[in-house]
């Protein structure tokens, strides 16, 4: 499929079409090009493009269009991928991407952002998942907390069901159906809702398995309006760390002049700080202290805001710096020249049009950015909501709400810990490689017999697209529970050197986080002399693609301190196979030091399944033990797809005796006296 792309860029708060880097027409279909871009009152960038049904898109961004002097090309970064076409016009909003690590920040934090969109190549399933929004109904007027019910069905394995509000992806629903939305966290007015789903034909990593296919579904747009006395209720940070001098800005707008009270509450709903005020908006910069500036523990806090109209006239809008979500940015009152083309809703600063653009057919006028916002549908409603002299008809004169749960905000002070993930999906077609070699210089190099095969066989590594969903699902679940995603490295974003121990010249990057996950193909040295290297050790090997592997013992897991690695999970076949682990242990070659609490991994052939990551994070944050969480996540995923799992699947867990019952919140220091190796059967085939 030929890639077609066009670019948009953002300059502080306004976007416009700039240039076309490459363009083409595929099979007489629509030329993929941006047709519109909106700046929302929250300074998100809504991108619209002419699209083709059944296509799936990737949206990239660049911070500038200056070619990298080393590569001669512009550095584009993936913002979102796997966006199913919504027909001949598709829309998505750039609100940053906090599902990946490090996160891509919201565009309001960037002085400039350029965009391009291109179709993604995939093998389509014969049928797509059927997705629909069951409730609320189209044109509903909504207030307070609303559950959006989505129905998604597929004969395949369902990977994702997502709900979007104005093009912004919301938190996943654990049941893929019910999405709980607090409408007070958005500006009042009209909003566009849609849902998408993705399915796959089976599990990844199946030896000699068939090609995996994908299906995508999307709903038509649902138009609803949010009508609340308290609107745009928002936090400035997903989580904040007062120890680093960070503060949390809590802000909201009201539909009329109100007396308001903000209570910051702990997990037991006890108020730790109370602030009151009046006006048409509020903002409180919380430094993480309790009443009387007392120290209070890190953890999850909620923000309870109640407001009642007071009958007073509305004052002028005031600004804070930096602006909270939903409030106009600094400079909003500055007058600039703007242009709008006939028939277009995109208002663009005149100065941003490149030289040579014919502006004769455009309407050119001077205005402030606030006035510009008022010209757009969402902007006008937002501004009207703030500036209304009288309470809109039918709206209650008081309202209370607890927030803020809109993605990616979680109201957490401090972090519970950090995690990092490295994975390989092995491209579109996978690859084959010769076995690891041993015996250089003497005896002469010989291939190690692995996976029950002969020395001369090739190992075949099938593509495993599920790893990506597993990584993202795990990340979302952990971030949602207050964990900090330090890194998620996919495919060519990492190499053997990143995971090798420092004594081998590696970076040992897993030792920089509390919880690590490595997802690759894996092999084991056979029993007997043909499966050992020249040191008589039968190793296990993660495969990194393209005839590249590391020995398990090339890594060294575990580090001390607050950010030290305590728990490591190896999602790769046979990594902790009992015979091999025994062989490596006897030779002092296990990749575990005194700081690692637990090492978990497959001790048999294992399989990639999209829901494993999400479920693993869910069980972990339900405070099940880490051992139980891993076993439960696999057992649940494989029972869903039992036909495709043909072997008994076992996992191995190695760790200090005192740590075997560790949970994320309750764990013991290594006792350094007893090490256990336990093996669990998580699936027995038919």
């Amino acid at each position, binding site marked *: 499929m030929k890639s077609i792309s066009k670019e948009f860029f953002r300059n502080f708060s306004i976007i416009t079409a700039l240039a076309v880097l490459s363009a083409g027409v595929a099979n007489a279909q629509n030329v993929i090009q941006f047709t519109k871009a909106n700046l929302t009152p929250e300074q998100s960038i809504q991108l619209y493009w002419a699209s083709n049904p059944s296509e799936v898109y990737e949206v990239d961004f660049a911070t500038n269009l200056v070619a990298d002097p080393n590569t001669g090309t512009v550095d584009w970064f993936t913002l979102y991928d796997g966006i199913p076409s919504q027909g001949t016009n598709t829309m998505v909003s750039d609100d940053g991407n906090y599902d990946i690590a490090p996160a891509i920040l919201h565009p309001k934090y960037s002085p400039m952002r350029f965009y391009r969109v291109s179709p993604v190549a995939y093998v389509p*399933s*014969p*049928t797509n998942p059927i997705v629909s929004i069951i409730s609320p109904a189209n044109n509903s007027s909504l207030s307070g907390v609303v559950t959006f019910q989505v129905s*998604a*069905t597929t*004969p*395949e394995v*369902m990977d994702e069901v997502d709900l979007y509000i104005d093009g912004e992806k919301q938190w996943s629903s*654990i*049941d*893929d*159906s019910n999405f709980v939305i607090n409408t007070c966290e958005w500006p009042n007015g009209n909003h566009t809702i849609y849902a998408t789903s993705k399915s796959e*034909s*089976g599990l990844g990593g*199946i*030896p*000699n*398995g*068939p*090609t*995996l*296919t994908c*299906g995508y579904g999307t709903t038509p747009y649902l138009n609803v309006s949010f009508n609340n006395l308290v609107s745009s209720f928002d936090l400035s940070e997903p989580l904040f760390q007062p120890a680093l001098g960070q503060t949390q800005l809590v802000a909201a707008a009201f539909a009329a002049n109100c007396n308001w009270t903000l209570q910051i509450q702990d997990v037991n709903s006890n108020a730790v700080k109370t602030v009151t005020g009046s006006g048409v908006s509020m903002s409180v910069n919380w430094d993480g202290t309790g009443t009387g500036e007392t120290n209070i523990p890190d953890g999850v806090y909620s923000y309870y805001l109640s407001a009642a109209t007071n009958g007073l006239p509305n004052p002028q809008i005031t600004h804070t710096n930096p602006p909270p979500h939903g409030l106009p940015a600094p400079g909003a009152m500055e007058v600039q020249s703007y242009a709008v083309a006939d028939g277009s809703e995109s208002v663009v600063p005149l100065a941003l049009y490149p030289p040579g653009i014919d502006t004769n057919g455009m309407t050119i006028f001077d205005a402030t950015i606030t006035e510009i916002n008022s010209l757009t549908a969402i902007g006008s409603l937002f501004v009207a909501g703030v500036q209304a002299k009288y309470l809109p008809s039918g709206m209650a004169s008081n309202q209370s709400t607890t927030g803020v749960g809109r993605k990616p905000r979680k109201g957490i002070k401090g972090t519970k810990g950090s995690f990092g993930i490295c994975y390989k999906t092995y491209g579109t077609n996978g690859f084959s490689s010769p076995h690891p070699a041993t015996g250089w210089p003497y005896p002469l190099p010989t291939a190690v017999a692995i996976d029950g095969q002969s020395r001369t066989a090739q190992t075949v590594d099938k593509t495993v697209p599920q790893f990506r969903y597993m990584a993202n699902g795990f990340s979302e679940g952990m971030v949602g529970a207050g964990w900090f995603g330090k890194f998620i490295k996919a495919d060519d974003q990492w190499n053997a050197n990143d995971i090798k121990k420092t004594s081998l010249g590696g970076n040992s990057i897993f030792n920089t986080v509390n919880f690590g996950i490595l997802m690759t193909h894996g092999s084991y040295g056979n029993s007997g002399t043909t499966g050992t290297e020249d040191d008589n050790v039968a190793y296990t090997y993660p495969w990194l693609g393209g005839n590249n592997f590391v020995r398990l013992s090339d890594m060294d897991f575990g580090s001390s301190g607050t950010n030290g690695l305590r728990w490591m999970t190896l999602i790769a076949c046979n990594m902790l196979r009992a015979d091999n*682990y*025994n062989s490596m*242990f*006897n*030779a002092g070659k296990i990749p575990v030091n005194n700081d690692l609490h637990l090492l978990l991994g497959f001790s048999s052939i294992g399989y990639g399944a999209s829901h494993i990551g999400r479920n693993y994070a*869910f069980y972990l*944050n*339900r405070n*099940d*033990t880490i051992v*139980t969480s891993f076993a439960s996540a696999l*057992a649940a995923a*494989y*029972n*869903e797809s*039992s*036909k*495709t799992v*043909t072997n*008994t699947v076992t996992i191995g867990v*190695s760790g200090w*005796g005192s740590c*075997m*019952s560790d949970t994320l919140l309750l764990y013991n220091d290594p006792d*350094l*006296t*007893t*090490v*256990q*190796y*336990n*093996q*669990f*059967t998580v699936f*027995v*085939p*038919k």
Partner: protein
Amino acid sequence: MKTVLLFISVISLGFTSQADIVRLEGEPFKPSTNTEIIWAATNDLPKGLWIYKNMPEAFSWAVISNAMKIGRFTMKDCSKATNPMYNDKRLIYFSNTNEYGLSKYLYIAPSVGVIEYHSEHAFKAPIENVPTTEETEQLGRGVLFQLGIDKALLSEHVRNGYDETSSSLNVKTKQMSPAKTVVRGVSFARKIDGIDISANWSFLIHFRSNSTVEDYILVWRNLLPYESRSVLATNQILESIKSGLSVLPEQAADFTLLNKAKKITITKVEATYSYGDVGQVDFVYPYADIEMAVDFGDSNIETYYLKCPIILANVIK
């Protein structure tokens, strides 16, 4: 693997109902017109089968009471689930600590037909009297009885071996001790209309020392007979295969060779029900699992598996 979605409407009644979507997962398969297809299966199929609708309220209060008793919970242990796994407005949640001071919990989700119990494993607890495989199966059946499961609805294919073994690694001698079994598990699958469902298990339970229940999960929906359908005759199943309405489920075989098949002999046909995921499927449907011997004409005969519609229907792709 590709998957087809078959829409089935009843010829005899002439209407299409809510239940008329049958899902068959696999690679679409249409044999070459040069391939001879022979029916040699000798087993009988039922004359008719039901399509079932998933209903709420899967568990009686007596069952809930027994679940509490198994986990040694009282009403004082009941609280609101703060992080519910199951989307069930009637979710019941109990939590407490076990004899080792570790957590235990019980979720009962009657609307989606799930009971989940877990008592955290004490890794330092003495290992004694772990039930044998045979005892584990009997103990599992006993718990199923207490949970109100009719043993007539259980598949004969019990899956043993959901076990946990433990070894000690001696840090000084670098020796690993022989593995001891510390937990044994067993799973049971459900039958519908006397036919095994396609999911691997509907009930999975583990026991530890002294036959104490460590955990279990029961997925047992309340199924309402919704529509009865006639089962296809032998020649109709053959026609369905010839016309490309069957699929090849995932299996260790090269599908591309099938185009070269000289003769396909249907050796075995079994009816089954697809159970689906919790909360994702409104109806439960029957289909045919088919085993066939494929003759490539060079003395090479391979076994392949097919899924095929089994109820009388007009199939539209």
